[in-house]
């Protein structure tokens, strides 16, 4: 397994666990207060993502030191571009849907969470597509 594929697996798991936990938190708080949770809850999510991602990437780089120092080759760059383009469509769809929802309901907090959820989903899709492409080709 190449370093890029390992990195995609690690980031997928980190985002799935932390992002999933964040979404569960937001839903629980929203149900408890009877309204959409305040957007400030995102700070804990962002700090957690940054910290855990750095730790995970450092551990990965230490355990694969030879591959980690090598730049991506042409196949890895091609896979990164391909998966990023697909994920971009999902993000754009999510943002446009969120904006449409905001125009109708005018709920800024919900707009915030819908855009953030679109970002999380598109990133997860990008990692999944990378893993598939590394395994099966594009």
């Amino acid at each position, binding site marked *: *397994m190449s370093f890029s594929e390992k990195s995609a697996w690690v980031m997928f798991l980190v985002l799935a666990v932390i992002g999933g936990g964040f979404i569960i938190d937001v839903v629980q708080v929203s149900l408890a207060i009877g309204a959409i949770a305040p957007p400030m809850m995102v700070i804990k999510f962002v700090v957690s993502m940054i910290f855990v991602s750095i730790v995970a990437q450092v551990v990965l780089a230490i355990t694969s030191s030879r591959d980690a120092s*090598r730049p991506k080759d042409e*196949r890895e760059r091609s896979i990164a571009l391909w998966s990023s383009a697909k994920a971009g469509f999902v993000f754009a769809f999510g943002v446009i849907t969120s904006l449409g929802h905001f125009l109708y309901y005018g709920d800024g907090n919900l707009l915030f969470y819908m855009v953030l959820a679109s970002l999380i989903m598109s990133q997860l899709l990008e990692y999944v597509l990378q893993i598939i492409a590394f395994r099966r*080709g594009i």
Partner: protein
Amino acid sequence: MATLPITNCVRELRQQHGDMTQADLGDAVGVTRQTIAAIEQRRYSPSLEVAFRIARVFNQPLEVVFQFESDEGTAGSHN
């Protein structure tokens, strides 16, 4: 996923060159071992530059190492 139309004999050439490993060939042409494996399994078609580099490692013309397989399943040129 269907295999790509560019066939190659990279694996055979590696074996003929003292059982060169995929990692050794990858290092020689500037790609990962996994990319060499993907090329051999027809899951990835290399760029012209990498194709020429691979052919040069084996001291062979490009068309000996890589062939294009047309829709009819035959290898060859358009002429």
